[in-house]
């Protein structure tokens, strides 16, 4: 045993470090449930901001929902917005301080229900902001009620027999709709359930921030996520459930990566 301990101690030295928490993530314990995707995405945002060296220039806008306290964890400037209004608040900040990197961070209840109007119009105006969308198909914070993104048949506290299309309509693929808007420069859908998926999502977030510097429109990153408390599954089973049920409805990959190339189509031909 002690031989093994010695060998481990030989490895655990500063010169052998290959991964440590970003200094932008402070030591406040996250209030999220065990296994919650919010924590992973927070870490990726912090790592991207750190690697780009833009800590002093970045302003986040946090939502109403479980991520309402996002400002407690990443050491950058933050503004907390009223429910659903993060894209409008981010718009205001970016227009007053165009040299800053501004991003909104929202759940599906915030972005795709109460804040649908703000979401659509911010992207349609092509605001030069990054929008991060955590789609866990449920209202996590308030106790697991149905969201617009809830799957057909999915049991929630307000659909105890499963989402019924006759009564509740269909899951809203808001990201597909946003990709249609000329103001959208980059629209992608990612996930964070495996190391490979996490690395792809980090690249997508990095690309979104780089697009903001180019001022070519809105960069929108959906992360298909889990809510083990709302779904009433363990974190590991939640990931499996997400892969089996969420991914067919919310397929991963880039939906748009053309900048505002199509914006010219909207111009009138003659005066």
């Amino acid at each position: 045993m002690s031989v093994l301990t010695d060998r481990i101690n030989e490895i655990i030295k500063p010169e052998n470090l290959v991964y440590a928490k970003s200094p932008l993530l402070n030591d406040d314990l996250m209030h999220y449930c065990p296994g919650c995707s919010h924590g992973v995405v927070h870490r990726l945002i912090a790592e991207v901001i750190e690697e780009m060296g833009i800590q002093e220039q970045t302003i986040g806008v946090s939502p109403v929902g479980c991520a309402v306290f996002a400002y407690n964890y990443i050491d950058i400037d933050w503004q907390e917005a009223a429910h659903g209004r993060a894209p409008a608040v981010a718009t205001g900040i970016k227009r007053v301080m165009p040299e800053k990197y501004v991003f909104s961070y929202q759940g599906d209840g915030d972005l795709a229900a109460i804040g649908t109007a703000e979401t659509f119009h911010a992207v349609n105006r092509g605001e030069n902001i990054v929008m991060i969308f955590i789609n866990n198909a449920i209202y996590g914070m308030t106790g697991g009620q149905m969201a617009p993104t809830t799957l057909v048949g999915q049991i929630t506290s307000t659909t105890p027999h499963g989402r019924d299309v006759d009564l509740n309509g269909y899951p809203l693929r808001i990201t597909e709709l946003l990709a249609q808007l000329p103001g959208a420069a980059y629209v992608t859908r990612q996930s964070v359930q495996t190391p490979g998926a996490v690395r792809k999502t980090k690249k997508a977030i990095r690309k979104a921030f780089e697009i903001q510097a180019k001022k070519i429109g809105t960069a929108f990153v959906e992360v298909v996520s889990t809510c083990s408390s709302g779904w009433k599954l363990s974190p590991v089973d939640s990931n499996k459930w997400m892969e089996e049920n969420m991914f067919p409805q919310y397929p991963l990959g880039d939906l748009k990566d053309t900048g505002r190339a199509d914006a010219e189509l909207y111009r009138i031909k003659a005066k």
Partner: protein
Amino acid sequence: MAKVRGAVVVDNDVCKGCNLCVVACPTQVLALNRNVNNKGYHYSYMENPENCNGCTNCSAVCPDSCITVYRVKAEA
């Protein structure tokens, strides 16, 4: 041939015992401890430390950023 060896350090009191690192580890290094931390969670620890290659898969999926990873090239 140089063989890669690794080790992880879990911040026991930050870990919430979600188990995601345990299933993400390709070499079955990690397990949840029978003991609990000061929040009552069974925290992750290296049950089979000799298997670790320092790949950082565990730290990549950790929602609470509580895993630090070290890696060395050791002679086989």
